[in-house]
């Protein structure tokens, strides 16, 4: 299909298609952020607060009751009873904690939606209401393929651009076929640099993180594992910090797509070459140390052959 694009359709059409896709993508993400902000932030917001207060009031009632029952009783048993109530309260705190701690701002909602469609799935913010969960499923079913198509196209076009620039800058990368040959190490180098740069960036703007934590965060994000123990912007009260994560993630995934594109033709081919080479070398090494003079002779022959 791309061959058809390259040879028949104009570049303008390709870019128009990509632009249209990107606009749809952005629109979908922004719309999704609004929807989830509404469902989880507004629709359900009152509930956890009330629930927490209810639990506290219930515990309060129990304590007062205990006190009245135990008015003339011993101090130690009363103390034990109070302790029991507190332990029960701790349990209840834990279960309502997840619903309470979430702050659904637009910014957080945006990161949530992006983490859905890119399948990163941090989990620092999750839907707790039933409509929220249903909406999540429906939204993802459409959003994930859309994102994949988008990223795929971005990757293809970026790969072409990369090859074009490479041909422009380094004349010797062009093969007989007229294609630019981007070796594996370049693609890997690009990815690693992006990770490293991200680590430096996040380390500098998030004072609480060490460099390793920052690097760990970037890697876990870009691989779309998304454990969620580290999320940039989750610790601070400032709004709009999540957006940084969003941009880093989206651009990083496009870059990853580009590298996959560049690597596809090369990866296993180079790996096969490398493995054949390694096996050959190993055989020579083994033969040269063998006690069998025939094999040692063969080691010499095969090392001659490689030249």
């Amino acid at each position, binding site marked *: 299909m791309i061959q058809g694009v390259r040879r028949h359709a104009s570049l303008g059409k390709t870019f128009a298609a990509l632009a249209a896709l990107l606009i749809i993508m952005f629109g979908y993400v922004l719309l999704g952020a609004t929807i989830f902000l509404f469902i989880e932030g507004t629709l359900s917001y009152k509930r956890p607060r009330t629930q927490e207060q209810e639990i506290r009031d219930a515990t309060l009632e129990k304590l007062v009751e205990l006190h009245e029952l135990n008015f003339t009783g011993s101090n130690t048993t009363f103390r034990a009873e109070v302790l029991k109530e507190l332990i029960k309260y701790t349990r209840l705190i834990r279960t309502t904690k997840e619903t309470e701690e979430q702050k659904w701002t637009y910014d957080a909602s945006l990161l949530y939606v992006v983490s859905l469609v890119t399948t990163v799935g941090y989990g620092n913010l999750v839907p707790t209401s039933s409509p929220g969960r249903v909406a999540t499923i429906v939204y993802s079913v459409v959003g994930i393929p859309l994102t994949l198509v988008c990223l795929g*196209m971005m990757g293809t076009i970026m790969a072409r651009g990369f090859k074009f620039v490479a041909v422009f800058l380094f004349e010797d990368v062009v093969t007989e076929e007229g294609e630019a040959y981007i070796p594996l190490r370049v693609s890997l180098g690009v990815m690693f640099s992006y990770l490293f740069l991200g680590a430096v960036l996040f380390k500098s703007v998030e004072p609480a993180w060490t460099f390793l934590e920052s690097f760990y965060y970037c890697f876990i994000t870009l691989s779309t594992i998304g454990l969620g123990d580290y999320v940039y912007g989750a610790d601070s009260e400032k709004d709009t910090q999540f957006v940084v994560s969003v941009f880093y993630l989206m651009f990083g995934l496009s870059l990853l797509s580009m590298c996959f594109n560049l690597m596809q033709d090369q990866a296993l081919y180079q790996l096969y070459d490398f493995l054949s080479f390694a096996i050959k070398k190993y055989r020579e090494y083994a033969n040269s140390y063998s006690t069998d003079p025939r094999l040692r002779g063969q080691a010499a022959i095969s090392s001659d052959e490689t030249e």
Partner: protein
Amino acid sequence: MGTQQPKDSCCKMIMKFLFSHIGLCAMVILYCVAGGFIFEHLEKNNEEQICYESRSEYQPMENKTIESTLKIFYDLGGAITTKSSRELMEIQLRSVLETFRNNTLAIGYDGRSCDLYGKPAGPNYEWSWAGGLMFSVTVISTIGYGHIAPKTVWGRLVCIAYAVLGIPLMLLCLANIGDVLADIFRFIYARICCCGCCRKKKKDKDKVVAMKPSESNSAGPWESDKSMILNTNQIPPTATEFSRLPTRSPTDSFDNNDTQKRPGSAASRNGKVKIVPLEVSKKNDPIVLDDDSDSDDDDDLLDEQKITVPLTITMIVIGGYIFGGAILFGLWEGWDWLQSAYFCFITLSTIGFGDVVPGTDFENPQAQAQLMIGAVYVLFGMAILSMCFSLMQDEILAKARWIGQKLGIIDKESEE
């Protein structure tokens, strides 16, 4: 020279086994099992340490709260209880409880008995072998729940290295399995549903080739035909998208599908089916037919529809797996139906929030078994998803091509 050849084929045989389906699956499973042990070893002690530390922070705070409560009762809850003093007592108690709550959440100690870790009466380690197994599975499948995450420096470094090796391994395995399962599924489906069509097509020799379940399709670039390898520009955007999915290894059969448009390469490929040294044949799927039947695109679509499994069937398969999982985990974990379905969907899509995870109730004695079954569910789910993508891609590619043509991005004349 003579002694080199047995070694040659010996190494090749080993590599062939490694990359055959059984070998890859076994490698993935071993990798997960090993990961379970590795992470358990790295994180278990730290988990105990954290428990002791947070407990030592929590207990003084708890005592202080009790003292404050008793003091309030002593001061204000005496024999004379006026309305105002009672109100005052309630306000003060409320504030004490709120402080207690905030402190409890900040410290993060959940009441488990740290001394009894691992003993029958005590809490389960989160970083048990089963927990580590679940963690490893979620890392290499990129689900990444995060309900447990490595906290030690070494744990994190190993996690990164584990992922760098494990994710491509997993993708390779899934691509492999996906194709095999898809071929089997198509074969069964064709047998069941299209008996009439089958007989008509039997004359075409490619059909026979197409129906043969193929071995690893990752042999693509292993062939020395450079033109096929370097012409990845032909890969449509959707192919790249699928190459990101668990179904596709970087050496995707898409380049095969598209390069088949050139009759020369198709013929050479069919020839190569037997010649390739590792005896790995190309993935022959129905699109091969397009080449030899010298037809235009409409006919192609028609041919494909007769052989490819329709989208609805694959959707039903995925839906069925999610439904089955929802029932299983709903019953076992005591979740309601929506929560289970939500868990299954979030897991299989590899989003993996981690808010709902089986086997994480630390008081449940069955937690270990739940974790293991959860891990198995994930691995099977990935394989089934891979199969479905493999089945769907033909239809989706055809539709994408059709859309592209309609939009004028691709011209009607197919690439020679």
